[in-house]
């Protein structure tokens, strides 16, 4: 199997699916000739031409609005939003329209597309090139939300997302775009949605996380291991609808849980996971579920590494939860 980074794996998935299914269309700002500002769509313009890899005007509402129209026609658009921070001009089209199309039309008009967008910190992007807005989409009924943590999953989840009948927000953790490397199956490779991965089995504390913070959780787990704490690390992969069975089974085993995400704490996915665990495994809890997240501030520039829930902040939460 070839070694790839995340950028290459996503590119591979797009290329594979565009060859297989001529309904798949890529559109967005700078996705064409230059191949995207992160080069994720590199080479697609040359292979598939201006009709399937489309540089658009600078308008996220226009990108998503027209992609919705294309989807209603029967194409499978895979629009790119250059940074997740810039998805908000299209928020109305996404939450009022895309999310509700199938439902509000009584099934007359399913509307399927995949919005790809780089997410999260780690590139010194400050306020507007670092945010993780997944909760703002999970709360809205009708959207699926995916966030891979490694190249193989990135390819497999993207192919699953494109073939899934529902609209998907596909968040790509840009911090690990190039840093996460690994073997990626050639050709067709699907990682099913709504299935988490137990990346590190363990007995004492469950860590639920996703995206770039997986590596921080693993690093903290290694440190915890040296203190005799054996963590089970779950990579959600699909954030919504999430794999509740895997989470609950783990918590029933460990009785202790730490949720880690980059997004701000309040009303983030972490709170939802804690509430679900309360509803489904209350009597198994040996310690209060902990959250290690971005602070409830805008994403800062210079103090980025103090903002992110990196290993050094996860470890104390693990220890405290284990010792509770």
């Amino acid at each position, binding site marked *: 199997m070839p070694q790839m980074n995340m950028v290459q794996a996503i590119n591979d998935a797009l290329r594979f699916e565009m060859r297989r299914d001529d309904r798949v*269309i890529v559109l967005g700002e700078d996705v064409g000739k230059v191949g995207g500002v992160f080069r994720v769509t590199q080479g697609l313009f040359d292979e598939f031409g201006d*009709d*399937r890899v489309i540089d*658009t*005007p600078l*308008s996220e*509402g*226009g990108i998503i*609005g*027209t*992609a*919705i*129209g*294309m*989807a*209603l*026609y*029967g*194409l499978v*658009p895979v629009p790119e939003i250059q940074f997740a921070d810039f998805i908000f*001009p299209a928020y*109305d*089209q996404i939450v*009022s*329209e895309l999310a*509700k*199309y*199938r*439902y*509000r*039309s*009584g*099934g*007359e*008009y*399913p509307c399927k597309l995949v919005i790809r967008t780089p997410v999260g910190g780690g590139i010194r992007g400050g306020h507007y090139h670092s945010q993780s807005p997944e909760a703002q989409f999970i709360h809205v*009924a*009708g959207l*699926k939300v995916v966030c891979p943590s490694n190249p193989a999953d990135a390819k497999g989840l993207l192919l699953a997302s494109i073939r*899934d*009948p*529902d609209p998907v927000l596909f968040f790509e953790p840009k911090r690990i775009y190039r840093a996460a490397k690994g073997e990626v199956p050639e050709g067709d490779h699907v990682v099913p949605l*709504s299935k988490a991965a137990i990346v590190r089995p363990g007995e004492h504390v469950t860590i639920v996380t996703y995206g770039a913070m997986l590596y921080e959780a693993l690093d903290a787990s290694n440190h915890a291991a040296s203190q005799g704490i054996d963590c089970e690390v779950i990579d959600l992969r699909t954030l919504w*609808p999430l794999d*509740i*069975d895997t989470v609950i089974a783990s918590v029933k085993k460990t009785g202790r849980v730490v949720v880690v995400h980059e997004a701000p704490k309040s009303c983030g996915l972490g709170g939802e996971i804690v509430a679900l665990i309360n509803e489904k495994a209350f009597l198994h809890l040996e310690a209060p579920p902990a959250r290690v997240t971005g602070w409830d501030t805008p994403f800062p520039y210079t103090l980025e590494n103090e903002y992110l829930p990196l290993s050094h902040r996860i470890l104390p939460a693990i220890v405290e939860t284990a010792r509770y």
Partner: protein
Amino acid sequence: MSTATLAAARPGTTPIEAVAPDPAPPTHAPAAARHPDEIYAPDVVRVLREDGTLDPATDPGLSLDEVLALYRGMVRVRMLDKRLETLQRQGRIGFHIGSLGEEATILGSAAALRSSDWIFPCYREFGAALWRGMSLQRYLDNMFGNANDLAKGRQMPDHYGSRAAKFGSVSSPIGTQITQAVGFAWAAKLRKDDVVALSYFGEGATSSNEFHNGLNFAGVFKIPVVLLCRNNGWAISVPSERQTASPGFAAKGVAYGVPGVRCDGNDLFAVVKATRDAVERAARGEGATLVECMTYRLSGHSTSDDPKAYRPDAGLEPWRRKDPLARLRHHLDVRRVWSDAEQKALEAEVEAELRGVVAEAEKTPPPSLDSMFDDVFAELPWHLAEQRAELRKGPRAKAHGH
């Protein structure tokens, strides 16, 4: 702590329009004054002359059968509007948003489409849906939100959609359909299919984000789409001159490299002409056209609105004289192709039809409880399965509506 009367605060159903009309008289001149004159501007497409004859220079050449069918359609729409208003006042339906005065714009534009073409509607064009073949029964089912409603009772009245009629899904947020229509027609273009999309929107919607996005993409990518602005003078209480300082709505096309055309929106023939030209342009591969139909909303914004609060009745007079139905009837009279007897028969026929569909819709039960959880996703995920089970198990709410 609160001093509120708690008991009183558990309402049953407060209708949206539970508002008193503003007794204060309007303090600035109504927009009404503006349009009747503007219709005579040299750039405005007109066909039907005051004397009831057609201007051969612009006549789209409809056959007599077509004209009569459209006349019948317009009468039906007007009767339907009245009936729905009555049903709403009687509390039998919750809401209606009508098209009084805009029938020529709506029917004429729908009639100018080819059968392969699609409509991306606003909320005021049920006349176009019916013209395109959506059944009246299904429309009434939507008004009652019953189990037969194509939208499965999930949306407000006048929010429907019909794939069979190539008529998109109505939603409330203003303007969103414009960009979607552009994307839909773009897809057709990419697939080399001979399909044109037409998007309806009010002049108020030209201020929305999506007007800007839709028009801009339509211009850049030469999309086969017709962007049809119903300029009916008002966005609820806001007159069209407060909507923009541009010389008109068609003029906005310049900003996008999209040609703009204005027509007399109360002249059925002019609407057919302007729309048909735009459809043909699109089909020839020449791109989008912005068509402004200059018409007037004779009723309130919806059954929730009392226009007396912001618009003096007097301002309506010039527009009442331009009533599209009366003008068309005058044309038929001049041609001697329609009689009072035929009119009576038509009205009786529509009346009977209405009585039937209303009765049927009213007696149809509401959608099933379970249906609430369908179609959020293609398949029911675990959390919705749990919520459905909870709803099934739990005590029932007092139903409303039915």
